[in-house]
């Protein structure tokens, strides 16, 4: 791995961490969401400090050059993140639907009970007139 690639990896991981921490400072990100990015940044830094790991990995997997192994790792992590995001999104969508349905049902029920109340009132009024 060239020194330039290693420097780029370090810069990437540092800026990822910095952006995420800044978002938390601005109260725009929930702390739960930072776990993955810290993990990501740590792996990039480890790979750039110990390039032998990439050499070993590329030899073991029969990959032509160590930087390709690094790209593969990053690709894998991105795929995992996208996969996790999909799960989160579908969960969110389900909850929005559940919320909307609940709202509709509650509205109908409160209307029904309101109608019954007014009916009862008019009955009692009629009774009183009699």
């Amino acid at each position, binding site marked *: 791995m060239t020194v330039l690639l290693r420097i780029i990896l370090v810069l990437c991981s540092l800026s990822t961490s910095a952006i995420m921490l800044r978002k*938390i*400072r601005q*109260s725009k990100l929930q*702390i739960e969401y*930072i*776990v993955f990015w*810290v993990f990501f940044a740590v792996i990039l830094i480890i790979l750039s400090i110990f390039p032998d790991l990439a050499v070993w990995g590329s030899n073991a997997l029969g990959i032509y050059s160590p930087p390709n192994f690094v790209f593969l790792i990053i690709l894998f992590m991105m795929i995992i993140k996208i996969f996790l995001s999909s799960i989160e999104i579908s969960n969110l969508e389900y909850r929005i639907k*559940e*919320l909307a349905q*609940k709202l509709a049902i509650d509205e109908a029920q409160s209307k029904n009970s309101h109608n019954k109340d007014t009916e009862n009132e008019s009955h009692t009024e009629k009774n009183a007139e009699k």
Partner: protein
Amino acid sequence: MKLLIIIPAYNEEANIGKVVENIKMNYPQYDYIVVNDGSRDMTSGICHENGYDILSLPINLGLAVAFQTGIRYAWLNDYDCVVQLDADGQHLPNYIGPMLEELQKGNDIVIGSRFLMKAKPKSLRMLGSIMISRAIRLTTGVKLTDPTSGMRMFNHNMIREFAENINYGPEPDTISFLLKQGVKISETAVEMHERLGGKSYFNAVKSIEYMFHMLLSILVVQNFRVRY
């Protein structure tokens, strides 16, 4: 002092009745509010049937949101302080008195600690608590004997702060952050029971995930946060 007991409840049909009846019978001087966190069992039904004070969230949003709902209710109704009490019967309301005394000594948060007088048992379950204690001591210099205790009391200023901000879950990392910001936090010795019935939603995987998340948050993230 107007005190509100916040009881977050998620699928606690087995215990909620006993917990609330105990408060109503033996501690009528305290107000309470059950926050039903979108339970799928009879938790909400039991509360409505018996006329308990309850806020019912329409879907499950997690402990942090349920607790914040109670906090916002307290803020809107001008309570001087709140205490969190678990709906599973672990926390005993007779310790609210001593905790309140400690709060009135000028503390912002009082934690009901199981290990102030007694040593921590050396079990796998306590390993997490020990590690969180160490992490908080390392980053704030303050020794908390029971940072994971859910029985915590908050004063008026804290009610406001917890009501208005995000990333203020009722968890050790928030405690660590506030300690760092100079908030006064103290502990009072309490005893706790095992949960009365039903099941905890904490399993092995969830516990490890929780630990990992807490340590990362206390050791790294909280150092970069600012307080508004």
